[in-house]
């Protein structure tokens, strides 16, 4: 955590309030963006806001690293009466991740929107983007089950429309967005239902307060169903196989900024909440173990195999990446389903790695799309010659996705496999191996087209993306590389998170 010591420059008064400022900052920023006269101003606002959010997130993470978990009582009412934010190592990690992705997205949006969103819509678009950012940050920081629902909706409502705005380039974005809305709302409602059961059983909504009461309660059909509904509801948001139907169209159709942001954060936040409930709130016991072993793990494995297969037979690059996202969620959940510290740590590490690589990939695809309507694998033929830098960044992200050595993806798969071996779950190792192989195939197709094929005859030529796009793009792929050579920071975060979840550390 030395890094945080270094980055930790917020004045104490601000640090004390940092947890809420992480959320309130983007909210106020969203208002400012909505009020700003033009798209350019809105963009500046959104970048500044994102910087502020990241700064606060770093302050929070530093605080957590020093003091352990933070509780922040809102309205001055101690939980369970009031709502409290509770930030442990995992929450801090997620906040850092989301805030950084938010910043990268904000930078990227400067140029991306110009080609994808009509001028008069940009201010509102930026505002909506910031609302989503606030929503996801609130989702990972809050310690209150119902408040989590509220933020789930804050992040979703905006997202639906943002996805639909993709119609400007591809009208398929509209049905996709509608589909997303239906799925998402059903998911959220199921979640509320589950929370309702837990509330009925415990009388409280505060997660920390809930856990001991559930443990005291023992086996109760309402609680078990509650878990089922919560996981199912969040599973929809997390694109957990087989509840992932909404994701493909949404990622493929949305404006590239939204794809980048969603791919890197949306499913992750939901996964975080699932992990939080399964390991932090529900008492260990036969029910939980059976659930992990017989439901979560098999579904995750199915996701890895089936969706990777589908990705292989897909034409459009964005859809390939979307399928791959579902498969990768499978990898993460496989790690979590081991229910060991090593497994959870691997899962969290993988989660971060995947956020970075997918951010890079979707951003690169967006960068290509800025100059030329490149959608299918054939369109990508020879694009490496037309836009070498973006192509290089894409290649790095792809390498990390495959798990090539010296990328973060490799270390992620490494720790996943070794944790599975330690747990004696050989079949998981097999699934991982097969999954990696399939990944190799569909990624290989794209890379071969990009680097070893000649451009399509007479097709419009792509040109290199503007610097404003290349910078965040390189940050993403750069991090994938850097953490592949020195993974101290993410590894320590992941380990801390895992030990907190397994109750080995406060």
């Amino acid at each position, binding site marked *: 955590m030395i890094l945080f010591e270094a980055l930790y420059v917020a004045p104490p008064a601000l640090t004390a*309030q940092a947890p*809420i400022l992480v959320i*309130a900052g983007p*909210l*106020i920023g*969203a*208002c400012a963006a*909505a*009020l700003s006269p033009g798209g350019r101003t809105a963009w500046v606002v959104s970048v500044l806001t994102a910087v502020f959010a990241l700064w606060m997130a770093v302050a929070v993470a530093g605080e957590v690293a020093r003091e352990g978990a933070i509780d*922040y*009582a*809102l*309205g*001055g*009412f101690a939980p*369970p*009466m*009031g*709502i409290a934010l509770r930030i442990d190592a995992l929450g801090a990690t997620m906040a850092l991740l989301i805030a950084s992705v938010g910043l990268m997205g904000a930078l990227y949006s400067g140029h991306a929107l110009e080609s994808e969103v*009509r001028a*008069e*819509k940009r201010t*509102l*678009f930026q*505002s*909506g983007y910031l*609302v989503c950012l*606030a*929503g996801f940050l*609130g989702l990972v920081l809050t310690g209150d089950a*119902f*408040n989590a629902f*509220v*933020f789930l*909706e*804050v992040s979703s*409502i*905006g997202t*639906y*429309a*943002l996805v*639909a*705005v993709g119609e400007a380039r591809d009208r398929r974005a509209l049905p996709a967005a509608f589909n997303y809305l239906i799925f998402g709302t059903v998911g959220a409602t199921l979640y509320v239902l589950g929370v309702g*059961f837990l*509330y*009925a*059983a*415990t*009388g*409280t*909504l505060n997660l920390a307060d809930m856990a001991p*009461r559930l443990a005291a309660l023992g086996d*109760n*059909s*309402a609680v*078990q*169903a*509650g878990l*089922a*509904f919560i996981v199912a509801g969040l599973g929809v948001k997390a694109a957990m196989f087989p509840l992932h139907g909404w994701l493909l169209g949404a990622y493929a159709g949305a404006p590239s900024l939204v794809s980048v942001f969603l791919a890197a954060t949306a499913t992750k936040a939901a996964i975080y909440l699932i992990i939080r409930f399964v390991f932090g709130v529900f008492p260990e016991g036969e029910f939980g173990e059976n659930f992990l072993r017989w439901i979560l793990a098999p579904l995750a494995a199915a996701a890895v195999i089936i969706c990777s297969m589908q990705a292989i037979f897909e034409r459009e690059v964005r859809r390939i990446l979307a399928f791959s996202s579902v498969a990768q969620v499978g990898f993460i959940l496989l790690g979590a389903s081991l229910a060991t510290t090593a497994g959870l740590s691997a899962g969290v590490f993988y989660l971060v790695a995947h956020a970075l690589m997918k951010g890079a990939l979707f951003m690169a695809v967006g960068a290509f799309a800025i100059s030329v309507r490149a959608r299918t694998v054939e369109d990508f033929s020879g694009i490496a010659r037309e836009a070498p830098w973006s192509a290089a960044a894409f290649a790095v992200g792809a390498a990390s996705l495959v798990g090539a050595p010296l990328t973060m993806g490799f270390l992620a798969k490494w720790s996943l496999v070794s944790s599975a071996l330690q747990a004696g779950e050989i079949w998981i190792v097999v699934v991982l191996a097969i999954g990696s192989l399939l990944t190799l195939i569909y990624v290989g197709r794209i890379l071969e087209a990009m680097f070893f094929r000649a451009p399509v005859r007479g097709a419009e030529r792509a040109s290199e993306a503007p610097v404003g796009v290349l910078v965040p793009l390189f940050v993403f792929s750069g991090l994938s590389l850097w953490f592949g050579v020195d993974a101290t920071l993410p590894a320590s975060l992941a380990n801390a998170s895992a030990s907190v979840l397994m109750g080995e550390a406060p």
Partner: protein
Amino acid sequence: MSEIALQVNFALNIALLLMLIAVGVAIARMRSLLAAILLMGVYSLVSAVWLIVMDAADVAFTEAVVGAGISTIVLLGAILLVRAGPVRHNWRMTIAPAVLVLGVGGLLVYAMTGLPEFGDPASPANAYVGRNYLIQTPDEIGVPNVVTAVLASYRGFDTLGETVVVFAAGIGVALMLGFGPRSSLPPLPAAMGDHHVVLRVTARLLIPLIALFAFYVQFHGDLGAGGGFQAGVILAVAPILHALVFGLHETIAALPVRAVRSIATLGVLLFAGVGVICMINGGGFLDYDHLFPPGVEAIIPPGLLGDPDHAHQWGQHFGIFFIELGVLLTVAATMVTIFYGFAGRAVEEP
């Protein structure tokens, strides 16, 4: 008075629930979208009545204005725009959903058996935090309506989030419908007969009354049922009525789109701003006890404002007042934005 009162209450409860089920089935079977939408309105009204029976006055009020009111308007606007004919129906599409639904239903029933009895005052839900709110509100907040106290103060952060959700919905609708071709319905010609004169005159009378009622609901919120959401929706009805009678262009001329959006934004800013001020004055976010700078004497002596036996903070009262105001602005403005979005959409000729 005797036990009968309780049994009547319970009987009402059962009867209304059965009515709801009946209406639900009717909606499911209905082919005509228009009928289905109207039935949705009925459903909301019936459930509002049921909510009264369940002692949920505020919720009933909200359900009435939101569920039966604005939702119906939006739905009607939508089917007008999509020109939807009767819903087609094929049998393929019934088996799988039925199975799924039965599965979920089974799980739900299994879960329900684990719940405490209905109405049990000793159930965890009613005995723990819920009860504490009832006990502590007079002391800590000092508003008679505990729901308002919890909504605006104890769980004010939820309400902020909720306000943002509304705000986001406004953004969403604006992004979808706000920028398309506007409808070019000509303002109503004068030679359309006297009943329109009547209509206009009544409207002119009615609109201020609606606004007045809205503000009553708003400021009565901490004494009785009511509050920012209900008031916001009611307030939004005023311009909507104006648009229906005098034509959308008149309304937009009087109440420009951008202004409305700005008002919605200001509502959120006001809400969040209250929170920030509390922080600046040394409290936590939305901690109304610190609404006033340290050193300002802001204690309400017992007896003032109704409550004879507790002293409490002016801060709570003002905090709740301001954030409810923020909610009002955002909700009202957003509802108008949504109306503009749907009503302003050009209905392309078939």
